Each structure stands twice: as C-alpha cells, then as structure tokens.
C-alpha cells in the first residue's frame, strides 16, 4: 500500500464551527489522508499546526454547499469524502479505506456512520451482493437506508466526469450529493465498518428548511429519469418512496400555516414528474418492491392520500 494520500477529505468550516472542526481535523492526521479545509466564516479563520499536506482554502462567507464544492474542486487524491465539523474519522479508517479503495476500486463506496445502525444494514447488503445480487439490487438497498446514516466515498475522476456537486445555496445539499451518487455511478460498493463517528449532538437541531428540502428532492426527481437505474421498476419505486418519505416526514413539524404551502409545493413537484414515475404511486405497484421497509410503505400511503387530494 502506498503512503501517498489516497483519500481527500473535505471539511467546510463556518463561524462557530472552529472547535468542532478542530476535532475533525485532528482525526484526519494520517499519511493516507489529504485534509482540505474550506474556511467560509464571516470572521477570518486560521489553522494552527495543520497536519502535513493539509490544504486550506480561505473563502468569503457563503453557504456550506458552495464551500464543499470549492473543496471538492481542490481534491487531488483518487477518492474523496466530505465530513461535517465534529464528525471524526477513526484512526484505523484510513488504512481500511485505502485498502478498499485501492483494491476494490469502483466509482464509490458507501460507509456507515457509527451509532446510526447502518453498519449492520450495509453488511447485509454486502452479503447480498456477494451472493450474486447485482448493482441495482444494491442501489435499491442503499436507497432504503436513511441518507444521514451513510456517506459516500467517491472516485474523484468519476465525480468530475459527471459534474457531481452540492447544490449551491440550498440547505439539505448533502441529500442531493449522496443520493446523486447512487443515481449516477454504475459501480458502487459498501463497507460495513463504521469508519466515521458522527458529531456529538450538543445543540438542539435547527428548524428544517422545508422549502430547500423540497427543492433538493425536486432536483433529484428531475435527475433520476435520465439515469440508467430508472429502468428498474423496483428501484424506481424505492427512490420514489425514499424521497416522498423525506418530503412527507418534514410535514409533521411544520406550523399549520406552512403545511398548506408545503402541500402545494409537493403537488407542484408531483405534477411535473415523468408519468412512468408518477404512476408507480398507485397501490397495485407496491408489489414491485416487496421488501420496502414499513416506514417507507407508510410514507407512500401518506403521499398517495396527499397527492390525490
């Protein structure tokens, strides 16, 4: 195994994230890892004792998606990964990832975040792949997992060839990035080792920006029919259930005054969908994806009621 960086890790740091990002940066001190910091706070930030090979991009204030895009643009290693401030890479992760990436290769490898329960699910998916399940079955399984519990380690070359990016100026841009990986890339692998620890939840979560969430879902639904996986009905139904589940899930926490706006926006998205996708909402097509988790089936039911009304 070479000791050159095989993995660039992009970390966007805004105001008030310096302390959390410091912990993340400490976990990236490894010869196989090239940390890339995109500092985009209003206050100027600086890095003391940066790890060897650390690249620091000083930016003006901007959104996290724009900062991550700048970091991705500076990636030099063959594979790249993005982290949130406070997330840490396990010390044993670089070696494991390097082996997986150098010898397993592929367009992307999905890894679990510790504490999210995704590791066991990824192990099952890996076993199914090993037993002869194809890439479409793997993608279907990955769409069934919450996107917050898995993270894509992406081939830099493929990312650039496909113009993969975070949607600038939108919250929930990571939903777009990691799900677009599933849509765009033909050869995807999984690793069942939880190599990333999530950031400790020290502050209450910010209110969900549902307009941006729906905008991201809309962008993904516009992308999906253009990708090869759309041809698979089971995957199509799973993608639908996953994205509608996100859209429906946010509805519960909305003030009543905003619920109507949310529903109108979701209906707008629905009206513009490819009919081949939209018609799968009919109950008779549920049999296409018999393994759909109960929560996603319930989301389809709710979406059916909402969008028919």
């Amino acid at each position, binding site marked *: 195994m070479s000791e050159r960086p095989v993995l660039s890790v992009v970390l966007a*740091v805004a105001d008030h994230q*310096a302390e959390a990002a410091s912990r993340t*940066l*400490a976990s990236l001190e490894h010869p196989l890892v090239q940390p890339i910091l995109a500092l985009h*706070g209003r206050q100027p*930030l600086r890095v*003391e*004792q*940066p790890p060897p090979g*650390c*690249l620091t991009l*000083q930016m*003006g204030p901007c959104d996290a998606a*724009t900062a991550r895009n*700048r970091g991705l*643009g500076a990636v030099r290693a063959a594979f790249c990964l993005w982290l949130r401030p406070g997330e*840490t890479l*396990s*010390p*044993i992760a670089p070696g494991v990832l390097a*082996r*997986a990436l150098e*010898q*397993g*290769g*592929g367009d992307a490898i999905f890894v679990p975040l*510790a*504490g999210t329960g995704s*590791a*066991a699910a990824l*192990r099952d998916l*890996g076993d199914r792949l090993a037993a*002869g*399940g194809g890439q479409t079955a793997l993608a279907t399984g990955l769409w069934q997992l919450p996107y917050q519990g898995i993270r894509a380690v992406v081939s830099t070359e493929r990312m650039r060839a*496909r*113009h*993969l*990016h975070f949607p*600038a*100026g939108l919250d929930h841009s990571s939903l777009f990035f990691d799900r677009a990986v599933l849509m*765009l890339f033909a050869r995807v*692998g999984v*690793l*069942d*080792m*939880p190599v990333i620890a*999530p950031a*400790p*939840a*020290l502050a209450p979560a910010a209110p969900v920006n549902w307009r941006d969430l729906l*905008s991201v879902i809309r*962008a993904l639904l*516009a*992308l999906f029919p253009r*990708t*090869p996986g759309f041809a698979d009905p089971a995957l199509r139904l799973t993608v639908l259930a996953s994205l509608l589940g996100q859209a429906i899930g946010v509805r519960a926490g909305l003030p009543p005054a905003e619920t109507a706006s949310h529903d*109108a926006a979701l209906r*707008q*998205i629905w*009206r513009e969908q490819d009919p081949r996708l939209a018609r799968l909402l009919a109950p008779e097509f549920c049999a296409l994806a018999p393994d759909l988790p109960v929560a996603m089936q319930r989301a389809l039911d709710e979406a059916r009621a909402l969008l028919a009304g």
Partner: protein
Amino acid sequence: MDADQRLLQLRAGAGAGSAPFFELREDDAERAFHLSIRLAAGRFVINDMQGGHWGAEDWHDLPPGFGAEDPILLDRRGRQVRILIGGGAVEWMIRAPGFGARGFHVHTEGIDQTWIAPRRHAGLGAGPRLERLAVAGCDLAVPPGADPGVVLRQQALAWRHEQGWLDALVLVPGPDAALPPADPPLMALAAAGFRPGRRVTAPCPDALTAQTLNAVAAFNGIDGFQALPPDAEPPTPAPVLPARPRITTAPAPAEAPGLEVIVALYNTEDHIGDCLDSLLAGLDPTDTSVGITVVDDGSTDAGPERVRARYGGDPRLRIVSKPNGGCASARNFGRRLARRSHIAFVDADDLVDQGFFPALLAVARETGADVVQGGFARFEGDDPTRRWPAPADPQPDPVADRLVCGLMARPVSAGALNRRQAAIWRRVYRRGFLDEQDIWFPESATAFDDLGFEQRLLSALDRMWMVFGPQYLYRQHPQQDVRQGDARHFNSLHQMRLMLDHPGGEVPDGELVPVLIANAAWSVTLLEPALLDPFLVTLAELIARCHARDPARDWPGRARSAIAHPDFAYHLDRALAGPCILAPVADHPDRLRLLRGCESLSR
C-alpha cells in the same frame, strides 16, 4: 470452493514451466472460469469455455519480479471473481448463463491452493498479511510479533458484529469527557478509535492482554487508550489530550489608512502587464498608501510568471496564488489579505487613466464616503484612446458639482444609478462598510459574480460620491465572459435566486426584478440554442416567484414584453400555475452540466 469458501490463495509452484491453471468447472465442456499463469511470459490469462468453445482471452501482466512462490488471491462472490495480485486487482464476471445450477468443482493443474478465510467487507480486497482483530465492525491490525492470545481472540469472535455498545459509547455527548470503562477491553479500544482526544481505560484480566492491547492501540494510531493489567493502580485522571491541529478565529488585522487594489488574475497573460502599468503610472514609489495585490486564481498561462518577473522588486505590488475558484473567490481572497482602510477591485484585462484610484481615494478621505465612484468608458481591443462613454452614467453638473481635492464631484443617490450594468470595478470602497453590511462576492457564481455584489451594495447604500475626471477603461474583447453563449449565463439566474431566497429580501424586488429581466433579455440573445430552453424555464420560475410575492407589480407582463422568445410565454404560464416557492431545477451551471451529462448515461 463452495459458497462459504470464497478466498483462496494460489501459488504456481507445483507446475512451474507448464502453464499451471485454476478452473471452476462444471464438466469438460463447461469451464466458467479459467486462470492460467504464464510465468515465463510474465503474464496471466483469464477466459472461459462454454459448450466446448474457449472464449476470448483476457491477458494481464504479472507484477515485475513475480515468482512461483508469490501468492495470488482469488475471491469469488457469486459471478464476480476478483484476482488480487501484487497489490493490484483484476475483476472477471462469470458469463456462463446457468453457472452453479448443476454444481461445479475446482480443477487445477500445477497450482497449490490454500483456503484463507471469508472476507468481511464487500469491496475489500487484499489478503491478511497481518493478523486482525475485528470487533464491533472495526478491523484492528495486530502488529508483527504481538500475540493476541486466547482471551482477545475469543473476545473478537464473540463481539465481532456487536455494535450497540460501541454506538452508545461513541455518541456520549461532549467533546472532552472521558469515556466510561468498557467490558470487554477490546471494545474499549474500538471505541477509543472514534473519539480522538478522549481518554479510555480498559482493565484487563491479565498482563499479556493489556500489553497486547496497548501495542495494538499504538500500531493503529489510537491515542488516549490505556489497557491496565489486573494489579495496576487506578490511573490518575489526566487532562484530556488537546487536538493538535486547531482552527481558531484570527484576530482582526490592523488597518492602515490607504487603498488596496485587488486584481483578480486568471489566464490573462496578454493584458495583465498593461493593466498593472496603468495602475502604477503616476504612483509615487515611496508612497505606501496605495498597494496592489494581484491574486492569481490558479492561472494555467504565463501571467503570474510575467507579473513576478516584471514587478518582483516593486514594493507597491505583491502577487499571491491560490487554487482556482473563480473571480469571486479571488476577489474575496484578496479582501481577506488586505490591510488598508479602502479597497478596490480591478479586472486584469482593464486599464485606468493615470491617477484614477488615488483621486477616488482622496475624495473618499475628504468626504468620508463609504463608496466613491469614477467614470468609465469602454474601448475595443488594444487601443484605449478609442473609447466610448458608458451609457446612462451621471454626467457633470456645473450647478450641483463641488470641487473636492481638485476634482469635480457630487453625491449621487444609489437608487438613481443604473443597476443593469454592474460596474463594481470603478469604485473605491471603505472596507469597514463592506464588512458591516456583509457584502461579499458570491463564490457559488463562477461568472457574473459582480451582479450579486452590485445589487447588495446599491441596496445597502443611500448614496455614493461620483467623481468626474480620470476614467476606468473597460476593455471589450471576444473572450469576455459576458460575450460567451454558454452555461455561464445561468450564474446570473442563480444569483437572482439567492437574493430572492434571502430571509427578509435583502434586495427589494422592485430593484431586483427589472435587473433580472434586463439581464435575461440580453442573455437570450447570446445563448447557444441548446441552452435556451432550460434558461427560459428557470427564468419563468423566478419571475413567477416574484409575482407570487408581489402580484401588484405585474412582473410577468414586464417580462413578457422584454423576452421576445415565443417559448418564454409558454413556460411562464406553466410556472404561474404552480405555487412558485421552490428553487428551479437548473439554476446553476453545475446542475445544468450534471443534467446534460446524464444524456450519455441513459443511452
């Protein structure tokens, strides 16, 4: 090689010289996988036989120096076979339609094969050179010479896939708290791996286990872990290890009176010399109140070298390089570096009349204005004497103008300025004002970034001083961003969306929408035909959003009048039928490229 035995180690030793081979064979005529090692030729070959006919051969070079005793790892998962050899990997997909239905057997000649172990990670290659302890999904390498012992091996076996405990441990909130002791100690080691800077202690049943665990921790780079033998004293609490690299807020830079001129440079080698000459002309070499910072935004031409060669010894000028990020990023980067009270942004292909910026700076100092603007003229090609004035610019007024620092000048209302022609480069700004108003160039835009800056500035400003005298000279040439018909035009739509989305609407719609319409009307005349439709769709959605916010202004009517393309009315009608609160699908060049790139995917 049955379903549970997927990883084999092969050696070509037994039959060296006679093309030893390895096969997955159903019968003599059906050989789903055939690997032949040609040591003498330095190659190995993969192919198969179906119905008695050999398929095409897939040739690969053996690693340099590869010998008969060197291992080849063979990993089969379903139809996928991976050959791991000398650090590289080759994949082969079994093609036989009914493979496995009748069963198969391994057939070899001249090959030694050894069953190793099932691999745990899909997508992982490599044979285990070192012994590994797997616990809670973590894979810990045991250093050479260390003996894990029976206890640790049993723990690894029992806790191999157990993650609940680990998950609970790594999610203990607070960055500085010590993690609670864990049982078994191997689990504690895995948990320590996830929290750099935290302390984890692990009481062990015997000294060998403690010694080995500490060696494994060190070998895997896990700090803060300590395994304790049974008779050890309880450890005294030690301060939590601080993270070595630290990201901190930098102190506010000291600010000296004067002007910093930021020149964003990207592949402008033909013009940068003329630009800098014009900026330096008439500047007193001993006067340190005006400095020039050239920000090389990852140029790939000789521009930066020319600047260094020609101006390297000039104390009034410095050049800094950064990875490419677009003009906005270069301007913001230069602003972060600036240490003077006032700032200006100049395009690397433009010129100024002698004394232009010192004059604006003098007026800014004299009047205390936040922004001072000079006149500008366009010129074509390389002849700045053939210039034509900017349309709709404020003109000298003998009644209203005042003599300030020897120049005719007067304050003009920001609202009276032409918003359609962003002219951020012919001004001097007080840096404190830009900071207080939080006005930056939008780095998500890789072109037309001055549009967002301009709109925010003019909305934050009551008035600026206009100086009549020396001019900024705006070069017109075929390579200008604004003359291209490509996806860069979507940057202007993207910035409009950002401003519409801003909480509270930092730029009033009444000022923003006319600019949006005017710029779009101009873009429609330039765009490549293939980009017109997504542009019109996106524009229609933005206009519909503006209409939803303020139906009384009849923005749709104004847009229909300005955008002559017949498809625009169609898209606008569709957009107006929706609630219009979502971001358009393709309002940024990146998204457009991604969507268009997919056309090749679905073929």
